[in-house]
């Protein structure tokens, strides 16, 4: 059982969280986006072994946040609230 730190609620069991996706996967808008670019957004992932930055949601409070952790040791380096300004178009 891992412990993740929700930026809003504090330390909680992993069972309260859901993996959202890799951080920084920006959605391309518009009908003229190429098929390749769209497929890249939808499907392609870095999936690194070691240090990762991911978007997670704490299901009990509904807040999304960014977690930096290690995908091998499962050590959590940091969790930070999702910066809306950064992600809003």
């Amino acid at each position, binding site marked *: 059982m891992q412990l993740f730190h929700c930026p809003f609620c504090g330390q909680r*069991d992993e069972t309260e969280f859901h993996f959202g996706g890799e951080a920084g996967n920006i959605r391309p808008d518009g009908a003229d986006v190429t098929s390749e670019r769209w*497929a*890249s957004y939808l499907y392609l992932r*870095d999936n690194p*072994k070691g240090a990762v930055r*991911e978007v997670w949601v704490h299901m009990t409070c509904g807040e999304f946040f960014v977690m930096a952790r290690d995908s091998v040791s*499962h050590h959590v380096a940091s969790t930070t609230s999702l910066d809306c300004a950064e992600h809003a178009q």
Partner: protein
Amino acid sequence: MTRRYSALSLIKEGLAGQKGWQPAWRSPEPKKNYDAVIIGGGGHGLATAYYLARTHGISNIAVLEKGWIGGGNTGRNTTVVRSNYYYPESVAIYGLAHRLYEGLSKELNYNVMLSQRGMVFLCHSIGEMEIGARTVNAMQINGVDAEMFSVDDVRRVAPALNFAPDARYPVFGGVWQGRAGTARHDAVAWGYARAASALGVDIIQNCEVSDFIIEGGRCRGVQTSRGTIRTDRIGMAVAGHSSVLAAKAGFRLPINSYALQACVSEPVKPILDTVVLSPGTGVYVSQSDKGEIVIGGALDRTPSYGQRGNLPTLENVISGLLEMFPAFGQLKLMRQWAGIVDVVPDSSPIIGESPLPGLFLNCGWGTGGFKAIPAGGTLLANLLATGKHNDISRPFDLDRFVTGRLLDEAAGSGIAH
């Protein structure tokens, strides 16, 4: 010196103290050049080498394994072999694997113990029975030996199940494949390794690929922990670590890596003859020939490369198991482990040339790679030998993520891999 395996050779060797057996495979030093190199000494990589040598006559090849052969997902899965799939493309690939499995022990002269005791996929409601019917019809149309089972049929093949009408997941019936079953996972890797080695394939263990040699936009070889190896054709079959190698080759894959946990109970006398899968509990269970109850469950919640068991997943899986088989409440857990699987958005494999010319992919098998080993090997060998897809591998090319022609079994049948 005894090379051929048989009851007779066992008796002969028995009288001679079992001293005449040859190494199952050679362990030569790696050469500087090969006609083809396969990265990954699991079932898929070893099968690829075997079929390249046997079918295509290309035997100046090497299999590079970073640890010991069969040590990845080949040695960590729950050993189920089946081909009960919904889409014709899936049936073609898993059906090929299933047919090859049926002749594998004799072909390799290695008993992989394919045990076709059947598998039932339970239905827990009228709605699930309807989806079951949809699936069975699709399978029958595609030539799979699927049957719709009534609750009495299920009771006949798995009497220890919980048939109480007020069970949390009552049994309404199921989807049956009689040819499904299990095989001895390690033996599949060892059998292919032995047969490939006998055909001249070099199996190089403890040889980790650290980088690709890229010249003129093509892949020309690999740097390894045991030196530089040059070749113009590289196949990669490193389930669980596909993205890691892809990054070294300069491209990304539609894959997330997750730990899939499994566990076994202590060995007990026969109590469960078939493979049982329940969509309600998510539990996949069979009993090995040794008597252990072999239990698989859902993926962990966390993308991971850590090959470790975890408590919350284990608790969920075991809860589901005891809901299905209340009498298993008297058993004890003996061992728990995890394998790292390539999870692809449509849960179908990726087979084809990679964005780096000269490097061919066999990855993305999710939780279902073991059952496909003979097909994965056949198809990757064909790609390495000819540079081209055949009809079976073409639908599984990476380009399906651009065209949108995904092969999502769960989307079609409601039944995941």
